[in-house]
């Protein structure tokens, strides 16, 4: 199967002692599988071109369709964790071992239940790459309203239309302090792979939003949704706003700032210099 299979299958466990690990549970036409493909392509490039060790790459996710990208079929260290809390868990992993290169898969639903963790992870500029699969709704539970659902849209829990305004997650990440912020869509494969590579290379929080399609709950053919993601987006150019009614895609922010671990390392170093010269042991 591997010989004729997908080039990224080398990063997946297709079988285990108790039975098959594939296929993914995602619905036909879902964009999340594409996001996994783009991410593995990016990691593949970094393993080949950078001095990235495969053992140091860790995938962490919460709960929801996008979070199913971290699961028993990944041939990497990984944690499929708590809804909205994946960034807290990623923070803990870095505190224990700053060498780890952590990629967090998250969805727009995590921005609701984990909104607080999200803004504080960006504020601390923890060195993780957050890949947010935004399909504008809660897919896993059956198509309910999300914090990214458009105003007026009818969903399973807004049968008369959504009365709330959606979040712009990229603006939120940038304002909160993330070092790198970008948005693409599943219909921009090459750009997305390049952006994920930049994100993983970036020291500090990289937030990459990927607009994605949910053909099942939007009751629309995947190919139509895919075309719409091209039609409805426009690339940001410096000094120019995107045309009205279009969603901006591209890189919004790329800045150099110290991450949490680097700043704390200064304290560790300073404390240990003191200990060399002072009386130690008792408190």
């Amino acid at each position, binding site marked *: 199967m591997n010989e004729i299979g997908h080039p990224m299958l080398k990063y997946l466990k297709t079988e285990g002692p108790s039975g098959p690990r594939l296929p993914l549970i995602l619905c036909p036409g879902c964009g999340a599988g594409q996001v996994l493909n783009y991410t593995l392509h990016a990691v593949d490039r970094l393993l080949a071109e950078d001095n990235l060790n495969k053992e140091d790459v860790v995938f962490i996710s919460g709960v929801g369709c996008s979070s199913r990208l971290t699961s028993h079929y990944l041939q990497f260290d990984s*944690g499929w964790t708590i809804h909205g809390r994946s960034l*807290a868990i990623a923070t803990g992993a870095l505190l*224990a071992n700053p060498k780890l290169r952590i990629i967090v898969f998250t969805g727009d639903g995590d921005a609701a239940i984990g909104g607080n963790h999200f803004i504080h992870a960006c504020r601390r500029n923890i060195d993780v790459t957050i890949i947010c699969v935004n399909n504008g709704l809660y897919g896993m539970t059956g198509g309910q309203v999300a914090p990214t659902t458009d105003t007026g849209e009818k969903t399973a829990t807004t049968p008369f239309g959504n009365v709330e305004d959606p979040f712009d997650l990229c603006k939120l990440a940038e304002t909160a302090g993330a070092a790198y912020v970008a948005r693409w869509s599943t219909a921009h494969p090459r750009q997305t792979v390049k952006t994920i590579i930049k994100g993983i290379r970036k020291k500090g929080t990289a937030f990459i939003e990927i607009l994605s399609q949910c053909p099942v709950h939007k009751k629309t053919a995947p190919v139509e949704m895919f075309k719409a993601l091209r039609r409805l987006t426009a690339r940001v150019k410096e000094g120019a706003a995107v045309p009205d009614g279009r969603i901006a895609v591209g890189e919004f922010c790329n800045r150099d700032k110290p991450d949490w671990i680097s700043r704390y390392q200064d304290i560790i170093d300073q404390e*240990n210099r*003191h200990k060399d010269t002072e009386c*130690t042991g008792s408190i």
Partner: protein
Amino acid sequence: MHSETSQNLIAPGIHYLQGAEACAEGAMLAGCRVYAGYPITPATEIMEHFARRLPSMGGRTIQMEDEIASAGVLLGASWAGAKAMTATSSPGFSLMQEVISFGIMTETPMVVVDVQRPGPGQGYISTSQEDVMQARWGHHGEGAIIALSPASVQDMFAMTIRAFNLSERWRTPVLVMAEETVAHMRERLVIPDLDSIEIIDRKTPQDEGIAPQDYLPYGHGPVPPMAIWGQGYDVNHVSLVHHRDGRITGYNAETHFDNIDRIRRKIEDNVADISEVEARFMEDSRHFVICYGAVSRTAVEAVLEARQVHGIPVGYIRLKTLWPFPEARLRELVRDAEKIFVPEMNLGMMKHPITEALRDRCRMVAAVPSLGCLHTPEQILARIQEEAA
């Protein structure tokens, strides 16, 4: 054993410390190098002590945005190879239950200290033992928990070390159910020779000679060796019901039972190793005071006075471990009794498992409640005299 950082650990000898400080020093001696927390009275002193001390040992202290995130940090830190701890007080303990449940299912070594204050709601900021049932039953779902009950500054030190050892040995979250009383009191703390203190580290697949391709994340016995992130074992930590190899598809009732039953039994089948009970004045006793935590300090005074001044044959039993509940040990100790008194800083919580264990061994189990403050010995003595004189 502690060669790398021993110069910065607490020195052997006699100290005069607060319970919160003793707890933090015990944790660091046990190998804790990641602390995450959120300030809350009366637990904050523990985090403040970690914040001052942990960098000198190469460890890291972080103040997170809430208690859920603080507990969440422990999962990631533990999977990445660190011993990690948080401390909170009762309202924060409620928030942490989601993560504790997740930690039980993913079999994650982690230590949570709950410096109990009264509830419900904000309750008050004084002392309490009102979370002892939440410790066992607060998390959603089946499983088991280990919960220790310190009664002194010395206990805050030694039981925190024991909490880490138990969590590493049994791959599970361990709770230290302290009270405001023991966290804030200052008293003598004796630190023995550091090499005499047992420190247990989790077993890894490397320790067991298991190669990555043969590794079953939830197999190889009742307590699976734990692969550490970054060491090439491609381990997926998962809290969905899973097969022993970590597979989550192919769900069936047998796999579900196998998964949860092992997690429960690795604790419940080893109560004799895990749960400690202290018993005094057992000879000829017809009545018993069964207590735990700070209350045992006043309870022992009441028992002594009842015996010595009033000639009432009362025995003293202290639960040093609340969960798993040491039912078999209690039944060994109490074979035939008249009355059992359970003083607690709640309206009668541990009284329930005590009654369940001993209902055929005594005529009555009486709660001796107190809310928000420690009993006086007189209060407990009065109840004993009323019922047993």
